[in-house]
């Protein structure tokens, strides 16, 4: 009831922070790098904001960003998916094996992405069908799928040719200019637009939001809660599968031990992007910006010659800051 006394000014500020927060963060980070000096006392901006380096940052963003698309859907629906990193590893090994047994790129991508979707569907079935906690179910599948990846790769990385074929997807041409961007970046941007429109403007998107905001209300209003949850986890698996393809293309090898802890990066990107872990709100655009922000921080601080541990401390702080901002935005005590 006391919300009535909340001034419209504050309300608008909160609304604005939800939309603009991640951008504000990105601008602050850019400003910081614009004035920072590296270990030799030279301005770091020349190396960081070089077109070629920006391209590198984008390529480094792609895997996390594609994963973040699916993770945003899951988090908005009130869930969480910890198996993301394992699915990325599994699908990259699967893709590598298919290629080394002579498949051509298009069917490889299709099968790999569908395999990701299949694993996601199993997650969703366990969560929606047996009403289990998403955290526990995906914690389990994180381990199961990781094991599956190691079995599939016989415990070793499988290399693919680093010219043509699938490697083309993430290949960086003319490393000194921003364009042409690798195909993978365009694929990511296109998918982001599609996912954002679906989440914001489709009836299905409204149902996802409703389930995450208040499951009881969703049920009361005739939303097929279980079907929505299954679809959301399947779509997330699909995104993780695609992220696995990107990963494979970038590293030109399918490594079952890769992407350990990647799910945390993905979740961090989504949260920095303004999503609430309690469900019911989140933004695709924000998540992409969140992924970009983290990649820029990693890249920039290493250009400055800062140690790895400082990067980790900074990124951790950014996540906590983002969550704090989210709390304030929601006006909780």
């Amino acid at each position: 009831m006391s919300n009535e006394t909340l001034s419209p000014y504050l309300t608008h500020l909160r609304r604005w922070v939800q939309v603009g927060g991640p951008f504000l963060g990105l601008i602050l980070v850019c400003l910081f790098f614009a004035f920072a000096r590296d270990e030799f006392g030279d301005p770091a901006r020349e190396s960081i904001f070089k077109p070629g380096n920006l391209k590198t940052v984008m390529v480094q963003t792609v895997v996390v960003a594609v994963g973040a698309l699916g993770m945003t859907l899951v988090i908005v629906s009130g869930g969480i998916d910890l198996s993301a990193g394992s699915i990325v590893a599994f699908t990259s090994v699967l893709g590598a094996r298919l290629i080394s047994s002579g498949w051509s790129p298009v069917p490889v991508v299709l099968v790999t992405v569908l395999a990701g979707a299949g694993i996601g569907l199993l997650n969703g079935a366990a969560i929606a069908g047996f009403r289990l906690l998403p955290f526990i179910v995906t914690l389990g599948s994180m381990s199961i799928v990781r094991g599956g990846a190691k079995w599939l790769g016989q415990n070793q990385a499988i290399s693919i040719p680093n010219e043509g074929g699938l490697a083309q997807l993430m290949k960086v041409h003319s490393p000194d200019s921003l364009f042409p961007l690798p195909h993978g970046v365009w694929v990511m941007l296109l998918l982001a637009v599609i996912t954002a429109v679906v989440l914001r403007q489709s009836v299905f998107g409204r149902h996802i939001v409703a389930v995450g905001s208040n499951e009881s209300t969703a049920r009361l209003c005739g939303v097929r809660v279980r079907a929505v949850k299954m679809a959301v986890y399947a779509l997330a698996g699909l995104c993780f599968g695609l992220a696995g393809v990107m990963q494979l293309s970038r590293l030109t090898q399918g490594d079952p031990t890769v992407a350990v802890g990647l799910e945390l990066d993905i979740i961090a990107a989504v949260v920095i992007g303004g999503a609430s872990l309690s469900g019911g709100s989140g933004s695709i655009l924000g998540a992409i910006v969140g992924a970009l922000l983290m990649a820029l921080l990693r890249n920039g601080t290493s250009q400055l010659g800062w140690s790895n541990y400082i990067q980790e401390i900074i990124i951790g702080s950014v996540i906590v800051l983002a969550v704090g901002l989210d709390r304030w935005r929601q006006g909780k005590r």
Partner: protein
Amino acid sequence: MRLRLSGIQKAFGATLALKGVSLELDAGEALAVIGENGAGKSTLMKVLSGAHAPDAGKMELEGQAYEPSSPLDARRRGVAMIYQELNLAPHLTVEENILLGVEPSRWGWVDGGRRREWARRALADLHSGIDPGAPVSALTIAQQQLVEIARALVHEPKVLILDEPTSSLTGVDVEHLFTVLERLRQRGVSLIYISHFLEECQRVCQRFVVLRDGETVGSGLLAETPMREVIRLMAGRDVNELYPRTPHALGAPMLEVKALSGRVKPRSMTFTVREGEIFGVFGLIGAGRTETLRAMFGLDPVAGGTVELAGIDVTGWSPRRQLACGMALLSEDRKQEGLLLNRSIAENLLLTRHRPVSRAGFIRPKAERYMALDWMERLEVRAQDQRQPVGELSGGNQQKVAFGRLLYHQARLLLLDEPTRGIDVGSKASIYRRIGRAAEQGKTVVIVSSYIPELIGVCDTIAVCCRGEVVAVRPVGEWTEHDLIAAAIGQANDPGQPPLNPDTA
């Protein structure tokens, strides 16, 4: 004069919550503070009980300046507040709760003997028979409320403030509470009583003040002021009739419920509602009314019996299918179940039926905006725009949105569970008008309510439930308030023993 307030002001940021409130209270007097939600009642009470300091104005307690620094300070000076939501620690015992924070101690150790003694004395004042050693979680809500009052009594209060004390109580417990309050008043305790229920205020208090938009707009003796005048003061406009009767014709049977039973409740519900009928369901809390609606709508499992909607057997169908058939439910709990609190008004209104505002599964933003604004105007929802999160609205406006969803859905059978609980008079009147209009359009309405004047004012027919069964169904003209209560506690056929004092008016 025990308490005197003049020109109290309080601002939060740019919003003036209190613009100038004055009131006076004599010893042993009960004063009703009346006002719509957002009128400033809660803020005023927080100022009085020391939770907020006023920005301007004077407060005097028994002729001395009264400037409490905290709720505890206010309590020590003799002003105690009982909040609407109970503030007890459920795992502690009754006596531990009563003396929480003010435990009698010796060298830092709680003096158990003295604590028990004090708690006993406070409880004895209430004639409650509550065991001071029992854990609070083992008590009923009504008993817990008495513990709250006992906690206030420990300090020998001069002024006791009660905020909606009956909101979670049923008939018998309300009566007991009123007896307790009357006894306190006769001992010289002054009471400030806040309630949406004007009948209760008339019952408990002698005088009233009306707050509107942070100002005192009227005061007087309750016995001498017609209710209509009080409502006019509250709403700032003439609420000609709180319960407008719209003429409407009754048609063929629309809803037939036969021996419906759930897992635990209801046991066996049988009733028929005709097309265009406004059908009230009364009963005590726990009689199985809410459970009946939920089982009918498919939210809870059906154990036996049938539900027929316009001749079609819809027993046990999911809410989705029921909605498709034109049945819709307004939940009694708008915060936990009724609304997506963090989402916009538009999303909440249109959630059950996106077809009119979408094409090929995608929402058309313009159509959505116009549709939402149109409905907000029809429902008289006060908000910034259609994008404002529902959680930021006042209770009354939230309820209008939750109820509006059923109308927008064009449901032909509306199941309303406590449709006006905890909302202000203006919003109530607006919802009653919409219910009348719906019936006029041939829609069928089932209202579950614990608020008798509302059922008598709005319904064509009232059914009474007791222990999971319908015990009586009569046209509204054949019911009196007393009969309803008697039937609800299962004593309708025992005229020799009227269970409650019927002369409440």
